[in-house]
């Protein structure tokens, strides 16, 4: 197993050590160890069903909702074991945000309310504070100019690409440290996809981004590091350029050149 992510200890934001995930008898993620570096974009690629989404969801403890899921191993966020005793998943999820494949803004809320929805949970809001947050978050996802005149209209009136950017704005409003993205552009048209990819490039300045994608070209475009997962095992990971030009494992090469998956 080639693990070639360089960085000294200070740069590691999320550290996985021997992560195993079982759903009942199914062993979905097998003994994965990997580091995700701060302010970088890491793409997790692999064929369908290889466990990449499962892996991603363990990072913000979404599997807590699934009774048959068993997560063992260490997942460290900075110096905290996120599955440690006494750790409240709610506090983890504030630090580790998630953007889903299908945009899911709250349909009963306006654009404005959507952006602050998560933020409101954590703080009693003053209106001026809220206005500021809405503006800055929407600006950062490049949505502000398109919607600034209709902030109070229903979020469902936006196009798919706009909705997804809104969801990203909602995620960054709670000031997370890590942003998980589960195939964020797969439900969108090519132009929206491009906008999202540009956004990811900007977001990495402030956040650590881990993105699952089945689109290899996308992985090559946006990420600094890439990890290749196959049947629940980490086959290879390292700098994106290296993985895509001179992979070390044959399986990696086969996948990248399209021989399977």
């Amino acid at each position: 197993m080639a693990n070639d992510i360089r960085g000294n200890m200070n740069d590691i934001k999320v550290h996985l050590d021997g992560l195993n995930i079982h759903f009942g008898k199914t062993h979905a993620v097998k003994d994965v160890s990997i580091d995700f570096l701060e302010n970088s974009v890491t793409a997790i690629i692999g064929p369908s069903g290889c466990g990449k989404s499962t892996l991603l969801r363990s990072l913000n403890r979404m599997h807590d909702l699934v009774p048959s899921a068993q997560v063992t191993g260490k997942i460290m966020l900075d110096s905290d074991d996120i599955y440690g005793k006494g750790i409240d998943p709610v506090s983890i999820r504030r630090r580790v945000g998630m953007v889903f494949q299908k945009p899911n803004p709250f349909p009963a809320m306006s654009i404005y309310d959507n952006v602050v929805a998560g933020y409101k949970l954590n703080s009693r809001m003053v209106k001026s504070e809220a206005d500021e947050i809405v503006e800055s978050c929407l600006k950062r996802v490049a949505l502000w100019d398109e919607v600034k005149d209709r902030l109070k209209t229903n979020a469902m009136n936006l196009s798919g690409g706009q909705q997804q950017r809104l969801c990203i704005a909602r995620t960054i409003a709670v000031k997370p440290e890590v942003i998980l993205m589960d195939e964020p552009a797969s439900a969108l048209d090519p132009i929206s996809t491009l906008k999202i990819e540009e956004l990811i490039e900007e977001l990495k300045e402030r956040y650590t981004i881990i993105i699952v994608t089945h689109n290899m070209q996308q992985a090559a475009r946006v990420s600094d590091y890439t990890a290749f997962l196959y049947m629940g095992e980490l086959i290879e990971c390292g700098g994106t350029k290296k993985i895509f030009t001179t992979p070390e494992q044959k399986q990696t090469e086969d996948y990248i050149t399209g021989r399977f998956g």
Partner: protein
Amino acid sequence: MSTSITELAVQSATTTEHEAPAKRWNGDRVFRYVTTFFALSILAILGLMLVEMTSESLPAIRKFGVKFLTSSDWDAVQEVFGALPYLYGSVVSSVLALLLATPLSIGAAIFITEICPKRVGKLIAPLVELLAAIPSVIYGLWGVLVMAPWLQSTVQPFLIERFGFLPFFQGAPYGVSMLAAVFILMIMVVPIITSITREVLLAVPSSQKEAAIALGATRWETIKIAILPYGKSGILGAAILGLGRAVGETMAVTMVIGNSPQISLSLLSPAYTMPSVIANEFAEATAKLHGAALMEVGLILLVVTLVINALARLLIWSVSRSANGGAA
């Protein structure tokens, strides 16, 4: 087990060999006429109902006009009929019952779908549906022989003592009263609202819940920001359906409300509802005008129930529409 299609085909083939083709064609024709007839008879039943109710009420409508709705004089001997006490009783008992039942039902539905373990929820849900199937007369039996005496001996004296300064709790403690009717209606209406609310909550897409959870919401916060707003109109529809049921309830209410045409602010006093006065007086109403007056009460009840049910259906229907076509 059942005749296989092949056997049927063989049968049909052999019979047609001996019969003229016209006869076989007639079989289908007769079938179509017969089924159409029976299907249309349902329209006929509804039509008959509306026609009969209206025509039988006409003598009273003509004689009393709007006064029927505003006057409280109901005297069979003098042949003067004003239905206000019954309207008052129906409206107050149903609305109060609904106000009490709705929060309980929503709370229980939330508990069953979101909070308790799936297996427990699957056990409780049929129990609640069982409650909805209990006949009205049995609720009434329990109400008049168990609940009303308990109200009279325990609850009502307490209310008089503590809250008697309010006009709502004044008077002597009869067991049978508006209060008893409100309680029994509440108990009867809760299962319906709970069952429908439960279905509405189950229909909320999990992507909504995940969005809230990923933002770091606690379970209650997830319910508050993602689930309840999504199911808002469906829950409202459920409540209105419950209201419709409460307004039409006859036996249980008749047995516990006291059947006295008083209009009083006090919940402790007996009252009368539209279905109850019909239930009590109709069989013996020999005078034509009396019968017509009761028919008119029935007509009002019918119209009110139809409007409420239509409104409820509209709301619940709009929920299923948005669930299918709303979220991108």
